[in-house]
């Protein structure tokens, strides 16, 4: 349910961008939410779509990229894919894993229209 708060944060960031560099609407919003970021993509999309009417995001296409989880295995000393938190190293089965990718939660860019 925190996706509603995140959507609010995204809208604030878009409005702040419009104050710096005015535009009338966003045609496409590109986000990045890694598979280990603790965010439900479906819920985030829903929250954004619910929030959009009457704002700069009205009618915007929302693209959410999901960088896959990556971790450094301390025992194998290699980078391994991590499908979810709590999963073991695919090489050694151990859990000494430091996530190195897939934790991103960012706004990448906006495609905007000036009139």
């Amino acid at each position: 349910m925190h996706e509603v708060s995140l959507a609010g944060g995204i809208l604030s960031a878009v409005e702040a961008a419009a104050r710096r560099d005015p535009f009338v609407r966003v045609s496409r919003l590109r986000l990045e939410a890694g598979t280990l970021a603790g965010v439900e993509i479906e819920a985030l999309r829903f929250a954004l779509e619910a929030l959009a009417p009457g704002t700069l995001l009205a009618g915007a296409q929302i693209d959410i990229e999901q960088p896959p989880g990556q971790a450094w295995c301390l025992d194998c000393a290699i980078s391994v894919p991590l499908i979810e938190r709590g999963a073991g190293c695919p090489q050694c089965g151990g859990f000494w894993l430091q996530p190195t990718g897939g934790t991103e939660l960012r706004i990448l860019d906006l495609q905007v229209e000036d009139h």
Partner: protein
Amino acid sequence: MCVVCGCGTGHSHDKTEAPATDSDVQVDATGDLHYGAGQARVSVPGMSQARTIRLEQDILGENDRHAARNRENFTAHGVLALNLVSSPGSGKTTLLCSTLMALRQRRADLPLAVIEGDQQTRHDAERIRETGVPAIQINTGKGCHLDARMITEAYSRLPLHDALHAAGHTHQSPMHSHVDQQPHAHVQTQQHQHSHHAHDGGEPAGMLFIENVGNLVCPALWDLGEAGKVAILSVTEGEDKPLKYPDMFAAARLMILNKIDLLPHLDFDVQRCLDYARQVNPQIQIIQLSARDGTGLDAWLDWLLAGAPAVDRRAARIAELEAELARLKAQVEAPHA
């Protein structure tokens, strides 16, 4: 309240409205649903004349800036701030009341304060105030978590800061700025009267307990400026909760296994629970206790009074591996020596 979008209106979410081709849900052989397991969605830009504004900014950036200011403020005053997180019903408030009373007995002069987060009611703050410790209730309304700005606001209304100055605290740096704009009666000097509290692990000059909204999902993402998160799990819950809510247990510095006085009546497998927690977070520290009969409370108080030190099990593991490497190198090099 609508559980799909979190809004307060009574509208319906018609299943036919869901865009079938746009779904990230995967259904497995047993019919269980897995969200967020799909391939990375790569977008194809259209042929629009529109321009692109690159933002490249963290969605939680605004919260993180407030959290950083809170942390700076807590550290400068030697306040140990802990963010207590759990499911509803794990016994957080009872644990907090026992903890406050026990701390009062051990260190009568240690300034304490509590911030209570709930969706509604002042019940919990009232329970805390009955122990004599000042408490502020934050009702989040529809919100499922506390955020850093709420903490800034609540902290500025608690008497903890003034109590620290009354106890002779001076700021570490004249550059330090206060969140509240009220004039303070303290002397700003560069002297370090509390030189012990600047670093992680020293004995704190005061303690702030932040009891987050009972929820093991959302509060994991919001940094409040705390020294560490303490996840409380009670033995009346499932032992696999660390695996079911891995983000929270991965983010926690300490896990408290509460209500252990009930173990004789339950089938709870303690070892399995601890293994699951370490699987998700090899660094996590664990204390087993019963807030009701006081078992384990001393270990918890010792940890608090030591400044909630993080144990770097990873560093210990690296040192172990380096020693092993050195031994193997010596073996390889020995014949040539």
